[in-house]
């Protein structure tokens, strides 16, 4: 509490000195408005107060910390209403409209929230976001509605104070609306945009299709003068318009409407349609070509919109989903899926001699869009015709190889056999010059020599030293035998020969 007078002081972040707040020195109230002193809205301020009574001064209070921007509230917007043709036209002016120094300098950033209700008991409150200049037309005619508007600063999620409640009565709807264009809708395929509408009134109506660049609605200026005619859709009698010329992938939103003009030059405007190009547009099916090589199926995909149409591929980040299956008589064939990013794909693990069918759709995962499937393309994998040929060829080659090896081998073996037979079992032929002697001559291998007169004398050999030297004896035997072989060998009969054998026998026994 402050008894006699108060003194407020302010200290700004970044400054080093406390400053007295103008208009808040020597005040007797318990509150003070020091707005004029605040210029830096985004800086932290410290405020303190002390009481004074004549010469006595109280100690400074505890410091109040505050950032003007944080505690500031958005004031109510200005509202102008007009009841036209069963609808209410509303014009909102921003908070701080005529202030030189603004807390929210970017007044275009405000969004306005309208609350409207019927001025009757148990009326439901409707919330609706509106532009600074807008028309509320989903209302019943000849009814009183009450409304209030608040400004919202979206980035800070800050809601402002509501404007004072205003009530207005709607008029009757004008009757001469028979020739207006109705059911205005957009159909877009592969970035070709068409506007379609209906008209029950058949006679002498020409149309002008108009468009508005969406951001203009955000400004406080009157955008009704900013509608432009779509080139190629002026004074037409057709109930459709190709407005692709004004659209690009990055152009942002557009509003479209149809102005119908009857034979009396009276015009009527249709409802507006909002177009978000990449969201409104539908992706068309791609084209597919198939090719087969051995056990691989090659798929070539032509992107939707043609290969020149880079726009869709670029902005949608297109990918493709390939479906393939065996097209056989039994229907229980599983459909397989393959996802590819490029425009070429390969499928392996195929069965031979089978008809495979393929169809492809384009996908944009980012936009959650998919095209219709392309036409089915079928192709048959090469079959077993080749296999028997391969087997036969292999057999013949093998046979040939065997023969090639076996023939010289056989010949060589035959030659070898002949040689061996010749060596070990020769069939000898006697030489021609002794052939006539007859067989008798060859019975005994020894030729008997002519008998010569021989003295009958015997050689007596001493065998005394035999027992003493058995070892020598053996040697002696050997030498005797050898001498016998080489020395005079006279035998008139076989006795000497037999003697020798007897002697050797005797020696052996000893």
């Amino acid at each position, binding site marked *: 509490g402050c008894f006699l007078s108060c003194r407020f002081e302010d200290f700004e972040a970044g400054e080093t000195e406390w400053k007295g707040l103008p208009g808040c020195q020597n005040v007797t109230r318990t509150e003070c408005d020091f707005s004029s002193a605040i210029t830096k*809205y*985004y800086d932290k301020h410290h405020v303190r107060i002390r009481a004074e009574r004549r010469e006595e001064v109280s100690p400074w209070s505890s410091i109040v910390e505050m*950032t003007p*921007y*944080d505690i500031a509230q958005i004031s109510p917007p200005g509202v102008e209403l007009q009841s036209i043709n069963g609808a209410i036209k509303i014009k909102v002016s921003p908070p701080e409209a005529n202030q030189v120094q603004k807390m929210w*300098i*970017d*007044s*275009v*950033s405000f969004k306005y929230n309208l609350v409207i209700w*019927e001025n*009757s008991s148990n009326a*439901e409150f*409707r*919330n*609706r976001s509106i532009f600074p200049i807008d028309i509320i037309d*989903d*209302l*019943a005619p000849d*009814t009183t509605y009450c409304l209030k508007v608040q400004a919202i600063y*979206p*980035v*800070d*999620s*800050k809601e402002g104070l509501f404007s004072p409640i205003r009530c207005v009565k709607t008029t009757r709807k004008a009757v001469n609306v028979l020739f207006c264009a109705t059911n205005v809708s957009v159909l877009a395929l592969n970035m070709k945009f068409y506007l379609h509408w209906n008209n029950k009134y058949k006679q002498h109506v020409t149309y002008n299709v108009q468009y508005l*660049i*969406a*951001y203009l609605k*955000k*400004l406080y200026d009157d955008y009704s003068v900013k509608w432009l005619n779509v080139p190629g859709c002026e004074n037409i009698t057709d109930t459709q318009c190709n407005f692709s010329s004004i659209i690009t*992938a*990055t*152009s*942002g*939103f557009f509003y479209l409407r149809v102005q119908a003009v009857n034979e009396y030059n009276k015009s009527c405007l249709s409802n507006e349609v909002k177009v*978000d190009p*990449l*969201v409104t547009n539908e992706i068309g099916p791609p084209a597919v070509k198939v090719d087969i090589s051995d056990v691989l199926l090659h798929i070539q995909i032509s992107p939707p919109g043609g290969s020149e149409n880079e726009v869709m591929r*670029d*902005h949608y*980040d297109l990918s493709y989903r390939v479906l393939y299956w065996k097209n056989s008589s039994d229907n229980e064939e599983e459909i397989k899926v393959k996802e590819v990013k490029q425009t070429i794909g390969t499928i392996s693990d195929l069965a031979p001699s089978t008809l495979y069918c393929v169809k492809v759709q384009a996908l*944009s*995962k*980012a*936009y*959650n869009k998919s095209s219709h499937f392309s036409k089915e393309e079928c192709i048959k994998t090469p079959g077993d015709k080749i296999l028997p040929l391969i087997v036969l060829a292999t057999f013949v080659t093998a046979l040939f190889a065997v023969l090639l090896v076996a023939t010289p081998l056989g010949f060589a073996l035959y030659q070898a056999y002949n040689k061996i037979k010749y060596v070990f079992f020769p069939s000898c032929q006697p030489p021609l010059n002794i052939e006539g002697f007859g067989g008798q001559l060859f019975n005994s291998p020894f030729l008997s020599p002519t008998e010569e007169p021989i003295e009958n004398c015997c050689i007596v050999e001493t065998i005394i030293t035999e027992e003493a030297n058995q070892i020598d004896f053996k040697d002696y035997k050997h030498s005797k035998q050898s001498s016998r072989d080489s020395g005079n060998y006279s035998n008139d009969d076989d006795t000497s020969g037999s003697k020798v054998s007897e002697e050797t026998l005797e020696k052996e026994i000893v």
Partner: protein
Amino acid sequence: IMNAFGLIQIGLILLCTTTTSSLQCNHLPLQQRKVIENSLQLLDRMGKKFPQQCLREKKSFRFPEQVLKPRQKETVKMAIEEIFQHIFYIFSKNLTLAAWDGTALEQFQNGLYQQIEQLEACVIKKQTHYFRSKEVSRLKLKKYFQKIDCFLKDKQHNLCSWEISRAEMRRCLQLIDKVIRKL
């Protein structure tokens, strides 16, 4: 009364369906990259090369880069939304003295507007205090744009002040472009 009641019900249903069908946000990162690329090109196309005589009037505004660096994706997206809003505001002022290409300017503004609307619909804003403007870097961002606004007002929106602002906004968009590619 019955008619009105029915009408109100239909109105509510329409309101609900429009809000639910507009919450498809998967395409936002891809679309944003494309729009920013396009916006930079449009900024260049709007006017000619930076005039030599304006060089000495050039001022350092010191964009608070830390506002684009926090850990949370949502905080960065909110900062980007705020930057877009401020740029949109600056280019909605009286540009007659700048003598720029009107078509390029319109396309530039429309692209920004679309992005602002998308971000508003898709970024979840928490109601907790720390997330709001009490965050120091967000206040620094507001100060930065306030400086540019004051600069333009002081120079009475003459050609040089516009050219300097355009160069500055180009820098902002380039920074956002870099950040978006990492998100």
